[in-house]
């Protein structure tokens, strides 16, 4: 999988070696008068697994939604793999990006949602192959082959011919992970992917993600309340509060010896 990721031929923007894959530069996002992100700057290097933690409403999910262009920043710029995401350069000026430009840059990014969001009108196999075939232009056979491999990875081979409504939440979420990976993104965004699951189904999904984190070189940006999972997979943890990063560092440091009082409070509440 890791080898495939780096040689993947449909990846238009190969990882910029040693440099930052994602860059937020002074990004401000407001909803009405509510400032969700306040002049946020941060980078994620290629191949790193970064976890965003913090109280709800602190802007973590908004970061993922900005990267997926589901919401647009009021100020600042976001770069992915060296390309502006929400802007493009025209005659040396930065102008708001066209839908087409955003879509091209977005091809580097995959996302798994809290509510799975599988397409209920497609069976499992087609959920996974539809975008590779119609967006990346893969041959149907190749896309199906890839889908079968991914279903094996997430342990759902025998459910290939079912509709999403015939699967449990945990199974749906694992299909959603396979669907995102089928696009061979450089970055995988995980938005509270276990929050909507019954407690007994959480472990299965987290095991799959651990496996992916440890065996591939995919960059992960993860919003989660599963602190043990965050500790297992993260290279870096960013603690958010009120739209700002108030503390960041290696998980061992953040989880066992946080500097900031707010971080201590938050961790004692969730751990």
């Amino acid at each position, binding site marked *: 999988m890791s080898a495939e990721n780096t040689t993947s031929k449909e990846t238009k923007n190969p990882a910029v070696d040693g440099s930052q894959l994602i860059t937020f530069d002074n990004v401000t996002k407001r909803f009405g008068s509510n400032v969700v992100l306040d002049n946020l700057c941060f980078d994620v290097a290629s191949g790193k697994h970064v976890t965003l933690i913090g109280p709800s409403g602190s802007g973590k999910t908004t970061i993922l939604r900005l990267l997926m262009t589901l919401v647009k920043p009021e100020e600042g710029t976001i770069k992915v793999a060296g390309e502006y995401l929400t802007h493009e350069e025209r005659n040396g000026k930065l102008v708001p990006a066209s839908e087409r430009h955003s879509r091209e840059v977005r091809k580097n990014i995959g996302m798994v949602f809290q509510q799975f969001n599988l397409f209920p*009108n497609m069976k499992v196999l087609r959920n996974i192959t539809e975008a590779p075939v119609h967006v990346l232009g893969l041959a149907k056979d190749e896309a199906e082959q890839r889908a079968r491999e991914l279903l094996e990875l997430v342990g759902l081979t025998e*459910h290939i011919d079912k509709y999403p409504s015939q699967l449990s939440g945990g199974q749906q979420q694992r299909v959603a992970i396979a669907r995102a990976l089928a696009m061979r993104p450089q970055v995988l965004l995980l938005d509270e992917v276990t929050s909507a699951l019954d407690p007994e189904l959480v472990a299965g999904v987290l095991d799959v993600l651990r496996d992916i984190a440890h065996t591939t070189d995919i960059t992960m940006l993860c919003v989660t309340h599963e602190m043990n999972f965050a500790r297992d997979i993260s290279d870096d943890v960013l603690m958010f509060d009120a739209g700002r990063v108030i503390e960041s560092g290696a998980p061992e440091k953040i989880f066992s010896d946080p500097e900031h009082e707010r971080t201590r409070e938050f961790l004692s509440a969730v751990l």
Partner: protein
Amino acid sequence: MTDLTWGLWELLLKGLWLTVQLTVFSALLGAAVAFVVGVARTHRLRSVRVVSGAYMEIFRGTSALVLMFWIFFVLPVGFGWQLMPMWAAILALGLSYGAYGSEIVRGAIAAVAPAQQEAGIALSFSPWQRLTKIVLPQAWPEMIPPANNLLIELLKGTALVSIMGVADITFGASLVRNATGQSAPVYTIILVMYFVLAFTLTRGMRVLERHAKAGIGQAPAAKSGGLRRTARVPRQAEAPRDVPTTGGAS
């Protein structure tokens, strides 16, 4: 009813056939209009939404009968050609029922969870691909029950054409009434005819609805032959648990 001769029956049956044709052609036109206008009303460009909204308001707010006369009598003055009464009727019915139908299409599209659009964006589908592969297939089963209502309204609305001298069942009935001088039998007969047509339409739409729902894994397909069957789908709450037999994850 024994005093209805074969010739008079023939008049009614020919009228019945014409009513069927009128209904089918106006429904096809109306469905096309409904889809184009309904989808346009959800377009991201405001200008497209305004134009399609204006169409909907204008054609929903005008009488189909007057529109029919307008197309038949006024349009020729401007364009120098006149439609056959039957085609003028189909045009008028299709355009006005299409305006009603566009609301059904728009409403069903709006009822698809926004998260489905987001999932489509996350997979880099183009807006057109998101519409045709994700949104419309899910909106489609929701459209069928209200469309059935509208279709029956349309069927009964075709009786308006009799005023323009198009020989549908209602027109046939008035000829028969004039010939026999009896109202009761003939109007009872066509009442039953309309009902049978409407009932047939409803049965057809039911089959279509079941088939459409099965296509998004929502309900069992119809018991009637020819349609693919899917297992009854458990509700989310009672969905199968991840037990070791499902392969676990790691």
